[in-house]
């Protein structure tokens, strides 16, 4: 079985500036990997490129998703093929209820997979089951997408969408940013409930604390556009204790 995601020597520029400088990463099926790195290291760029965001110029390298080339697909095709990005800053869509939005998304994906579309009743049953699983309130469905949501509510809404859309590959872009410890735990519980042998999760984060709740199989450190070290969850703890400066210094020394 090919890995869920394979990134090979990926170089990416934004407005002429090189952000990713040869990223290599393999995420096997069923595993949870974390990418850690300081601000400006290219974490969010990597998430955006995987989701198909335009305005990012790929100058070199390739990305394979379940063995097939990913980079030529439109964002919606990637989504329908099972890639889900939990946004760092979820967008507000005034006047469109969460319920309507989610059903449209579910049906777009079902249609792509040759499944019949869900009617309002079937959809409600599905979404209620997920809400129960995530201990979330049904009132959320009637509100406009992310409009007037607190930071925590927005992130939980992303997890709800993830649960309903049942993706194969989840990319979580700094889902922990701006969350207090209680909200963090709720979000982490949600993610953990979605772990499964045929689903892979890529957790992108600045801080180690999220990884106390979502235990990764592997941790990769992204520094200045490259993965400079990979290891087990202990690597995250080491980073927490010593700071990113420790790795930066070590890398400079080894280059000398």
């Amino acid at each position: 079985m090919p890995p869920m995601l394979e990134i090979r020597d990926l170089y990416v520029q934004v407005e002429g500036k090189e952000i990713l400088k040869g990223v290599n990463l393999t995420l096997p099926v069923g595993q949870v990997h974390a990418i850690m790195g300081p601000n400006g290291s290219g974490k969010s760029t990597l998430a955006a490129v995987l989701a198909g965001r335009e305005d990012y110029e790929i100058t070199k390298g390739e990305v394979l998703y379940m063995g097939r080339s990913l980079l030529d697909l439109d964002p919606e095709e990637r989504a329908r093929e099972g890639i889900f990005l939990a946004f760092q800053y979820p967008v507000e869509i005034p006047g469109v209820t969460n319920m309507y939005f989610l059903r449209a998304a579910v049906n777009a994906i079902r249609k792509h997979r040759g499944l019949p579309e869900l009617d309002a009743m079937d959809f409600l049953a599905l979404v209620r089951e997920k809400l129960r699983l995530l201990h979330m309130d049904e009132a959320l469905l009637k509100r406009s997408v992310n409009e007037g949501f607190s930071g925590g509510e927005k992130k939980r809404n992303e997890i709800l969408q993830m649960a309903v859309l049942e993706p194969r590959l989840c990319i979580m872009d700094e889902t922990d940013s701006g969350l207090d410890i209680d909200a963090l735990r709720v979000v982490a519980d949600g993610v953990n409930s979605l772990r499964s042998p045929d689903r892979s999760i890529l957790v992108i984060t600045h801080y180690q604390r999220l990884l106390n709740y979502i235990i990764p199989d592997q941790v990769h450190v992204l520094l200045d556009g490259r993965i400079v070290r990979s290891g087990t969850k202990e690597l995250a703890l080491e980073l927490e204790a010593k700071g990113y400066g420790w790795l930066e210094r070590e890398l400079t020394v080894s280059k000398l």
Partner: protein
Amino acid sequence: MPTDTATITQLTQREYEWGFYTDIEEEKVPKGLNEEIIRTISRLKGEPEWLLEWRLRAYRHWLTMEEPRWLPNIRYGQIDYQDIHYYAAPKRRKPLASLDEVDPEIRRTFEKLGIPLEEQKRLAGVAVDAVFDSVSVATTYKEKLRELGIIFCSFSEAVREHPELVRQYLGSVVPYNDNFFAALNSAVFSDGSFVYVPPGVRCPMELSTYFRINARETGQFERTLIIADRGSYVSYLEGCTAPMRDENQLHAAVVELIALDEAEIKYSTVQNWYPGDKEGRGGIYNFVTKRGACRGRRSKISWTQVETGSAITWKYPSVILQGDDSVGEFYSVAVTNNYQQADTGTKMIHIGRNTRSTIVSKGISAGHGQNTYRGLVKIMKGAAYARNYSQCDSLLIGDKCGAHTMPYIEVRNATARVEHEASTSKIGEDQIFYCRQRGLSTEDAVNMIVNGFCKQVLLNLPMEFAVEAQKLLGISLEGSVG
């Protein structure tokens, strides 16, 4: 990978679906405008002397008026008023005894437009008056309404059958000398709809008029007059389409609404006249005067409009709040794409005590479209405790279009309360990307965002129309993002 700027340059490129022309023998008066033409129109319609006199007074006044050219955001070519046919009617041999005698070609035209005229196929719960060029060709459900005392017929028929009502109310809200286009309409108006709802009667179905401009080089000048007597209620809808043509055609209608004590009129419009092509050639000049008078205490008039068509739209459905405790509402969605221009809004004139008005305007501009909200809220001296709330939101798609908001507020009573809120936003690449990341196409994403933006207004449309309006919004904006 293409950049997202390209994404936001396209969502409006579907062809106008209603642009076909019906080949039918028509009776037209010669081009041009003079007293003789007006006498001819009046004679063709078999009108009484007083109405001819009224037309002539309007015409003579019109001659003294200047065509308005003062709107800064509206540009249009010279209209040659002598180069228009002021009356065109499908030729018929004898008066129609029943709907079944409607010319099959015209019947097919309305069927193509989704407005069946046959008894068995009629829209459930909607009575339709179909206006083809200058005349009303069919009115459905007439008998059923008559049992309740409701009069719903063509304007011409009302002049024949109910002259006292027409004479009493015609021009009482929009006088013939009100403005340039209203004066022109008063001189040459050909047909339209007439509604009278007797005291205490709640009209059980939606009344609807469907306007179709078919003939070349004609103008459409219809007049609608709706009277809701004490304690009555009526909901009225109008829809409109026209063939695609390279030249501009003039549509200058007048609508007058009168609500007596505790009466309520709900007037909804889905305007889809031909908007012109992508380069801005052709399309309808939609210069209409719509005004309602809340004459009675606790009366209510509510305008809801979805304006997606026309090269230029120029209309301000207004309410004169005369009766104490009367209520005026204006809910509007106006879309301009390609080279369309819209200058629309409302006037709420508060005269009575405790009068209330609400204005919700949603303008959407795409392509090179220019969209202006222009509204007046006027609180007169006697309007103690009057209240107004206005909300004007603009949505921009792309960077070549424009949105303008011009509220005018005049308050002459210190107890009044007037609130105005305005916002302008751009459909963001972030919003579109978010939707696409959830599996939606760009087009579906924009549709969804636009419909969400317009929701407050669409909610006020009767169900059948709301669905049609949503589809229309999608079509009107197709290709503006891509």
